[in-house]
């Protein structure tokens, strides 16, 4: 495997890279696809810089196209981060983001964060990265008195926490905190680990307490310590660059660092990948099942090749356990492809771990589209792992939005490359995640139940659905924010709110909020819909209405309308109003209000429609589910 700093899961930049960037410079129009195609290569710092300039020059055009999610990142640093800022706009394209950065002036970090009228606050960034180094935190020199050592860590943590609180209060942005890279040098040698107050001890203690005690649910953590260790500390730190220009890591490491920042922001915006699609022959096992037979394939203990493929399976299973959906896409006879899952003793992956299993002779791009459709997710949520370079190339050409790691032909590298690529970067891990793969499993069963029942009403009745509707509460907040930030298709207004915003909405008496859960006989779907109405005297207006596509066609939206209509009536209102704001992804709900009996009132400026429902005309429908409201019509 080649050097980790070259981002080896990406194809190397083509020879004509510079010419292609230059062509964009003078192009009449620049589309997101033009720049994301170039960003998909493993670019060095200069290449990222040139592509980034195109992004800067065409920012408004790209924003108007609506394919990339705009994010303004404030960077408050105690060292030089200009190179990271230069690398980020191009890097972020890989993750679906249109990133712009705003920096604090050198040495002005605390003022920028603590003064609500600072230029950083005025820029209204979505996130602020607090990039502090060990020197500025008083952790770069040893403290040999135990009490002083503990005190040094405590005051560093207090300082970081106060800056974090400052960002939240004065700027209202999400905060990215980071751990500190361990220095490459020791003072005592191995004994450093045993001396309270050695720099290694101070930094290890700081990192541990930062993640456990300071980083809150609504903060993001950039684990620079782990990143630096992955690269190698002697390689990560470049003392000449530090002494010369206070650049905190080797220049070669900046593209990787920037990629880690971008993937974290993308994950916070709900843009992390959701599904790993696996090839079979020479990916999950060595050899070709159709030729070699179940006794001939290489899998399991006893050979390097067999163990390497086993490791790929173990990673896939671990990913599934944390909520990543697994699918199979193989050129095979289905019967043959299934044999190892059923008959090979050492298979770690079983048939029921795979949510969609496609083995046929159709081209893989077509199959990947079908897989995404079956799962109700976009093809941009897929990662496709295949040992065959021709298949990888074809999928990249047909579906450039699918992530296709460049894995080479050594299966021992697959686990490392997949992990380095960071496709499944997470910013939370909760019960919903733990159950997700099972939910999608249950969905496949539901689809087959539909085939058997045939009639939709009978089918819905057969699901034994129980729908719970409750106002926002503290317990649901993380999931509510997650849904608000990642629902694209069934989303009427696509308004994004942070956890802090959600907390404010929860306690605002002028808002009527709903979190909706759905259980059926196949399992718990978890929270599947979030709705916010603004209460007016006469009419209530829909600010946000979104739903997980997993429960499309279950009439949950009718249950939601029934609930809000009853609440509005009880409060003396006579009308509900709503709007549809179109995006490239939400055409699904263009007729949402119409289907619910609303009447169109006008066209919105800038596209979309507005709707109204006279409550006097509304009659509650009979719905094929039990509806439970935990706190009826609470303010």
């Amino acid at each position: 495997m080649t050097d980790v700093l070259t981002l080896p899961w990406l194809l190397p930049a083509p020879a004509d890279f510079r010419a292609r960037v230059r062509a964009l410079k003078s192009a009449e129009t620049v589309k997101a696809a033009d720049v994301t195609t170039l960003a998909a290569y493993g670019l060095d710092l200069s290449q990222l810089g040139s592509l980034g300039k195109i992004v800067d020059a065409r920012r408004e055009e790209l924003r108007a196209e609506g394919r990339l999610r705009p994010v303004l990142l404030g960077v408050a640093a105690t060292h030089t981060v200009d190179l990271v800022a230069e690398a980020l706009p191009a890097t972020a394209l890989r993750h679906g983001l249109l990133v712009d950065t705003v920096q604090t002036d050198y040495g002005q970090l605390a003022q920028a964060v603590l003064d609500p009228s600072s230029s950083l606050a005025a820029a209204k960034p979505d996130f602020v990265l607090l990039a502090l180094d060990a020197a500025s935190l008083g952790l770069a020199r040893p403290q040999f008195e135990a009490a002083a050592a503990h005190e040094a860590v405590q005051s560093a943590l207090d300082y970081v926490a106060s800056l974090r609180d400052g960002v939240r209060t004065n700027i209202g942005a999400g905060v990215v905190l980071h751990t500190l890279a361990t220095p490459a040098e020791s003072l005592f040698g191995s004994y450093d680990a045993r001396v309270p107050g050695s720099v290694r001890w101070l930094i290890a203690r700081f990192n541990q307490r930062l993640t456990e005690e300071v980083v809150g649910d609504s903060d993001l953590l950039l684990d620079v310590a782990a990143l630096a260790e992955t690269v190698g500390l002697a390689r990560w730190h470049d003392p000449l660059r530090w002494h010369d220009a206070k650049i905190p890591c080797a220049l070669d490491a900046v593209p990787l660092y920037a990629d880690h920042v971008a993937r974290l922001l993308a994950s916070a915006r709900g843009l992390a990948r959701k599904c790993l699609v696996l090839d079979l022959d020479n990916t999950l096992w060595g050899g070709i099942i159709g030729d070699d037979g179940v006794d001939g394939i290489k899998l399991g203990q006893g050979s390097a090749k067999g163990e390497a493929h086993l490791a790929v399976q173990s990673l896939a299973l671990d990913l599934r356990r944390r909520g990543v959906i697994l699918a199979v896409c193989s050129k095979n006879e289905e019967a043959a492809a299934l044999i190892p899952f059923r008959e090979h003793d050492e298979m770690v992956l079983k048939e029921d771990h795979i949510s969609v299993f496609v083995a046929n002779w159709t081209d893989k791009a077509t199959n990947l589209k079908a897989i995404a459709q079956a799962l109700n997710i976009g093809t941009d949520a897929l990662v496709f792992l295949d040992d065959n370079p021709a298949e990888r190339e074809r999928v990249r050409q047909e579906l450039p939005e699918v992530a296709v790691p460049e894995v080479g032909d050594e299966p021992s590298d697959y686990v490392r490359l997949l992990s380095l690529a960071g496709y499944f970067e997470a910013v939370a891990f909760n019960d919903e995640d733990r159950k997700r793969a099972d939910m999608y499993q249950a969905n496949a069963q539901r689809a087959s139940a539909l085939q058997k029942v045939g009639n939709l009403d009978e089918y819905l009745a057969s699901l034994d659905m129980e729908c719970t509707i409750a106002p926002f509460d503290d317990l649901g907040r993380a999931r509510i924010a997650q849904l608000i930030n990642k629902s694209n298709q069934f989303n009427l207004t696509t308004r994004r709110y942070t956890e802090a915003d959600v907390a404010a909405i929860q306690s605002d008496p002028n808002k009527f909020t709903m979190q909706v859960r759905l259980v059926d006989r196949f399992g718990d779907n978890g929270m599947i819909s979030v709705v916010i109405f603004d209460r007016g005297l006469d009419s209530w207006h829909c600010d946000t209405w979104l739903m997980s596509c997993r429960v499309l066609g279950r009439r949950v939206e009718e249950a939601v309308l029934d609930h809000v209509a009853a609440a509005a009536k009880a409060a003396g209102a006579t009308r509900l109003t709503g709007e549809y704001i179109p995006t490239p992804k939400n055409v699904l709900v263009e007729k949402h209000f119409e289907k619910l009996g609303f009447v169109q009132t006008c066209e919105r400026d800038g596209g979309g429609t507005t709707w109204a429902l006279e409550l006097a005309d509304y009659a509650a429908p009979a719905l094929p589910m039990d509806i439970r409201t935990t706190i009826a019509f609470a303010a």
Partner: protein
Amino acid sequence: MDRSAIIEQLTEIMIDVFDLDDLEYRDDLSAADVEEWDSLSNIRFMVAVEKAFGFRLSNSEIESLDNVGEMVDLIQQKLA
């Protein structure tokens, strides 16, 4: 490596690092002549030279350079 080959490679590096459409090489070319050539892109330039030619430049070597011609001399000397 002869001087003209070094100059050719160095010109390519400068076009990349300073994001230029084209560059007419002269021995007395310096930061004053290239708009994009500031202290940070100078560091990127030095690191790109180190990578391309396979040696490390010390801080005193970097600080001793007044123009590109001297850089070519230094590369020639280091590769000799």
